């Protein structure tokens, strides 16, 4: 059993209240940071820890923090991205609703490190009950003197606000999030300037995922070097994986990075294998936007090595034979899954969620969805399969924000690895459109 750094006390009764959380060692990192460390020392520890952004991109957090512009006399902000809405990812919701004080503790330590006097948690609009939990926890933290003026007599003051979104996936993109937080339409901004220079209210801003911020207290308490000992290579620490799909034990697992994918799927400690004794067909390893991989490639890399749950191992082979760790939304699909239907479903989501600002994404996502709908319902042609690959390629890399890529990658990967299923829909439309139909033939490896 791996170490649990974030979720060790998640099942303790009343851990969402300040008193119980404090009894279990909560807010130690705030005391340590504010009383014994300078802000730069905190940043240094985070750098040493090798912590990487848990929201999907995996950018080193310490580096992001050190990029923050620090002009004199200008406020800076730390914004927590709690707009978790990637299909397949549901880790932040659980973390916030069970351990609200962990996030608040991380926000205080992080804000102190960055010199922010006001910080925001931008939470997904649908998570209204979590918003209430957080607001209650914040009120408790204010009452206990961990927020507000002159925290613990250190002279450092911080105000923390929670702000709900209005239900748009695109507001999880950091610049769209900032626009939305400013009260505008949630359209992603053109970059540069990056938020580290001009973010919220055109001030230097760091936007971090909930899980990233929740890891900060651990790093402050135990030290960056200690944290970096967990994991493999540049993938340090623990990661929450929200496993779902056709698994015996779906749920949220905190794993030490470096667990083999095979062990994660089949061992009883984690997901306990594929349900109903069926065979695994494919896995989407990091939330719906990362490329789908067939069983053979998710368990072993193209070179025949065991694939591990790390940023590097999962992306081994690039997008030809690899994928990404992403946000940790691990979707397993058994042999009864129709990949075409699944791809259409993902595509429908991105069509619905495109903000409509830039033309390739606005028009392309709709086009993809319509052609996939046609293929799935048995009206497609062989030409359509090439068409969706071509349209996906026209979107990829040519958009303002990564939503275009998120819409294109699953489609091109599905065709790359499961072209035979698309062709089966074209050649056997009657069979393929029967309820619950899925291609059961031998997989054809690209």
């Amino acid at each position, binding site marked *: 059993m791996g170490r649990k750094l974030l979720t060790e006390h998640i099942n303790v009764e009343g851990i969402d209240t300040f008193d119980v959380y404090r009894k279990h060692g909560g807010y130690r990192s705030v005391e340590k940071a504010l009383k014994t460390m300078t802000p730069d020392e905190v940043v240094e520890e985070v750098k040493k820890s090798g912590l990487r952004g848990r929201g999907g991109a995996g950018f080193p957090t310490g580096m992001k923090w050190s990029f923050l512009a620090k002009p004199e006399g200008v406020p800076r902000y730390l914004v927590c991205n709690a707009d978790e809405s990637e299909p397949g990812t549901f880790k932040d919701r659980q973390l916030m609703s069970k351990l609200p004080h962990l996030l608040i503790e991380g926000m205080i330590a992080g804000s102190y490190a960055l010199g922010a006097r006001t910080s925001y948690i931008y939470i997904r609009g649908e998570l209204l009950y979590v918003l209430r939990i957080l607001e209650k926890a914040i009120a408790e933290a204010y009452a206990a003197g961990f927020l507000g003026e002159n925290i613990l007599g250190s002279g450092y003051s911080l105000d923390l606000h929670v702000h709900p979104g209005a239900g748009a996936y695109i507001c999880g993109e950091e610049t769209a999030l900032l626009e939305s937080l400013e009260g505008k339409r949630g359209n992603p901004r*053109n970059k540069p300037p990056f938020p580290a220079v001009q973010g919220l209210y055109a001030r230097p801003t760091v936007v971090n995922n909930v899980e990233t911020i929740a890891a900060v207290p651990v790093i402050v308490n135990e030290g960056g070097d200690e944290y970096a000992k967990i994991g493999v290579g540049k993938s340090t620490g623990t990661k929450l994986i929200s496993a779902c799909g056709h698994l015996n034990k779906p749920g949220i697992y905190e794993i030490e990075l470096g667990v083999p994918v095979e062990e994660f799927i089949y061992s009883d400690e984690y997901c306990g294998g594929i349900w109903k004794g069926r065979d695994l067909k494919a896995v989407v390893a990091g939330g719906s936007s990362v490329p789908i991989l067939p069983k053979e490639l998710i368990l072993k890399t193209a070179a025949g090595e065991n694939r591990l749950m790390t940023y590097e191992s999962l992306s081994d082979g690039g997008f030809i034979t690899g994928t990404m760790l992403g946000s940790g939304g691990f979707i397993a699909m058994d042999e009864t899954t129709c990949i075409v239907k699944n791809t259409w479903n993902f595509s429908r989501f991105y069509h*619905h969620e495109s903000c409509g*600002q830039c*033309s390739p994404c606005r028009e392309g996502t709709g086009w993809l969805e319509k052609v996939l709908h046609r293929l799935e319902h048995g009206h497609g042609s062989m030409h359509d399969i090439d068409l969706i690959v071509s349209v996906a390629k026209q979107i990829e890399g040519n958009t303002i924000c990564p939503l275009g890529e998120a819409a294109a990658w699953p489609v091109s990967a599905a065709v790359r690895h499961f072209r035979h299923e698309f062709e089966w829909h074209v050649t056997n439309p009657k069979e393929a459109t029967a309820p619950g139909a899925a291609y059961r033939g031998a997989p054809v490896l690209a």
Partner: protein
Amino acid sequence: MAKITFDGIEVEVPDGTTILNAARQIGGGVVPPAMCYYTPLKGTGGKCRACLVRVAAGSAKDPRPMPKLVASCITTVQDGMVVENTTSQQVMDVRKGIVEMLLINHPLDCPVCDQAGECDLQDFAFEHGVSTTRYEEERRTFEKIDIGPLIQLHMTRCILCYRCVYTADQLTPERVHGVLGRGDASEIGTYIENIIDNEFSGNVIDVCPVGALTDKTFRFKQRVWFTKPVNAHRECENEKCCGKVTLWYKGKDVLRVTARKDQYGEVKEWICNTCRFDKKETADWVLEGPAHINRASVIAQNHYELPVVNPQVILDLPESTTRELERNPPLRLGGING
């Protein structure tokens, strides 16, 4: 000052200039097309992706190429930057794709569209697109909406460039005009079905690159290539109005009044609704002479003015560049202003 190489042509521009504006200083066929960027409006650009270019070298200090194509209208130049536009096959292919994307939900019925002949999308598709479509599905359609008595909005033709939104936002004090909805269901609208009641509202017609916003006093009166553009001015009582316009004549009648557009279709000085909609008599104006129309435009087929060749642009180039040009002429240099 920053020196950049654009399609093999060196040009020196002030720091902070965008790649697109640097290319416009060179002029001619190397200039990337722009469907959403509009120089006088703050915040425009980056949306249509028509002006994507490849940066082969980021700067003299860091000569690595940029990983993705960048929107030239919002990316500022760095000293030593090397940019490829017409010289990059990748850029040309992507641009073809952008035309296709812009056209999949745009009706292909130019013959019945009032904007035909002066439509940026028509030009863009003609220059960079292909003549077939791969899109078989139904296109999105909307009902026509009257935004007040003078302007008609037909969302079906809109390419969501946001120019009118910025115009309404920056020229008029109270914002009632914006984008509603999301993705390909988003539409330009007023809150809620309000009319735009403002002295400068007519400018949204001029900035619209397609036939989505049209002048109701001119709609379907005449095909634009049968009218004759004449520059004129008057002393306008409105302080913010420049009073410099183009009158569009058919015979002796002024059918339409618009603000003056430069060679990139941009209005640099705005006019008020009184000048635009109410002053349609020759007696209201001091005539200046035929307005310049690009030789390639269908409107110019009636030869209102002699073709103008502006050699000054070439003469102003540094000698090394002209030598390079002689050896290696870029595409359609003859298109300069002619």
